[in-house]
């Protein structure tokens, strides 16, 4: 394996070559990731809405305002519920699917297509299809419930059911995506260890628990990050279904930011919310890197 990788930056005669190579992408990253992150932190310190007649410096008062607002706390709580409620089951399902599909089956191609295709459907499309399924009376869900004597349910219109209904749709979409990463990780596990365990009489569940899952460490690190970052900013479904309702039951952080900016024109508050979102993402990533990275053992 060729890992004696790096060489002198002078070897082509121009010691700044690496920087030139990085310049295009750094420029884009600078303009659309780093600068915005700093800029939004700056914006969050200013009161800037329809009533303020221009931005006025106000320190942390935007933050104290929103954190003291029960509606915002609901939004935060919804977001955590949505992220955890989607990411954890999707990971569990994705892993289960991968473990089951790692063996050869006649219908394997069908299973792969069936579980993975939702990833290739835009979230707005998936949400629309599920909104139709959830429609009372002639939606699929209600028809099925009627067959069994129930029915009359309106999941997306019920404050208690709306968020779980959206979570179900998100799990449906994300499981196959995560399954692929687990499948790749499983293929990297040498079979000799499993064979040895089998010869010793271990059952498959035990093998999974004691051998496969620990060896999937690096894959878990990656999958957790992907799952959290993706779900934390997943609000497309709100545009075509509930719009954050009913009664803020499905209002998520990024959606609230969108509403504050483009409907209520309160830039200062929206900026403060963005700071919170970005901060949460960074903290999650840092935690993930520290906690999971410690426990995994890499080959190189």
């Amino acid at each position: 394996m060729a890992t004696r990788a790096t060489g002198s930056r002078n070897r082509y005669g121009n010691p700044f070559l690496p920087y030139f190579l990085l310049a295009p992408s750094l420029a884009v990253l600078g303009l659309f990731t780093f600068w915005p992150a700093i800029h939004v932190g700056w914006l969050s310190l200013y009161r800037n809405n329809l009533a303020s007649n221009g931005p006025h410096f106000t320190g942390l008062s935007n933050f104290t305002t929103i954190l003291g607002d029960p509606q915002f706390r609901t939004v935060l709580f919804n977001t955590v519920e949505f992220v955890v409620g989607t990411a954890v089951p999707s990971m569990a399902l994705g892993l289960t699917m991968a473990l089951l599909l790692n063996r050869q089956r006649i219908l394997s191609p069908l299973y792969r297509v069936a579980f993975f295709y939702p990833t290739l459907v835009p979230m707005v499309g998936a949400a629309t299809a599920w909104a139709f399924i959830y429609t009372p009376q002639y939606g699929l869900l209600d028809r099925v419930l009627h067959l069994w004597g129930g029915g009359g349910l309106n999941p997306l219109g019920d404050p208690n059911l709306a968020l779980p209904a959206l979570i179900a749709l998100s799990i449906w979409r994300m499981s196959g995506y995560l399954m692929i990463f687990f499948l790749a990780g499983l293929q990297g596990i040498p079979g000799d260890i499993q064979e040895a365990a089998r010869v010793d009489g271990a059952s498959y569940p035990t093998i999974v628990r004691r051998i496969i899952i620990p060896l999937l460490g690096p894959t878990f690190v990656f999958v957790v990050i992907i799952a959290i970052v993706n779900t934390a900013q997943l609000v497309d479904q709100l545009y075509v279904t509930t719009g954050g309702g009913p009664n803020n039951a499905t209002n998520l952080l990024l959606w609230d930011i969108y509403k504050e900016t483009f409907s209520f024109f309160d830039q200062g508050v929206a900026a403060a919310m963005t700071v919170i979102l970005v901060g949460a993402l960074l903290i999650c990533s840092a935690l993930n890197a520290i906690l999971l990275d410690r426990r995994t053992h890499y080959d190189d």
Partner: protein
Amino acid sequence: MTTESTTEPLLDTEEFPAGIAPGSAANLAAAQPGPERAGVSLRSRLLRQGTANILLLAAAIFWLIPLLWSIAAALEGPVQITADGWGWLPTHPTGVNFVNAWNDGQFSIYLVNTVIIVTGIILVQGVTVSLAGYAFARFDFPGKRLIFTLYLLQIMVPVTALVLPNYETMSSLHLVDTKWAIMLPYFASGFGTFLMRQAFRSVPPELEDAAILDGAAWWQTVRYVYLPLTRPSLAAFALVSIAFHWNDFFWPLIATNSSANRPISVGMALLTASQESGTQWNLIMAGVVIVVLPLLIVFLIFQRAFINSFARSGIK
């Protein structure tokens, strides 16, 4: 190449060489119906396998239902959709919904926009991630670790999360409601840079040394030595990126406010949102099917390529 024998491993073995070792999981699984393990009867093993297969089949059908239901609804006549007798199959199949959805939804413009946007993004990304990947893979320079961390951060805090400040930036640049606004933030990709860095690292450095001895400039080395060998990684990244950007909705929504530059995902959402009354479901579902079909058909044809691409992108 759309059907595979049951003894082939699930993922391409050239890309996952560990999978072809004699004792690998793939071969092991293929040898399943072999000798009994100590302590577990053949019967209970068959029972477990049978249960697993039934569960998988049930799950697969469940997963397919939303798609099948959508297609059925799109094919149903406009009147029958709310009728009591409407079951699972369209009683009066018709293609009129697709025609109406296409026209009402202005899909021709949106489709062209999407193709332009996605092509533009992929082409530029290919260049930027290759250059950056090369820099990280093969050079030592002051600040390397810090800059590398910055690329990593871009994965954690994506463009979508930063809609507010990015919109401000676009506004200042007077680029709102242009295709540039949609494309620009995506021209670099921390994710793609990582992939290419891994790919470049796996090329034997001796090849580059030989090229230098022959008097090659850096871009010649990249073009004639590295790129041919890292083509699979680049192709994999391109596929993943195409899938993502074809379906991207939120940032394009914010960056545009007229139909001239909107992509198809936004167009479809607008069509749905405009049908407030909710009784035009067949029209809406036709719109969904139109949007969903291109990528799905390509996926069905190139299944292995797609799945391998996504899988490859996950290997750190």
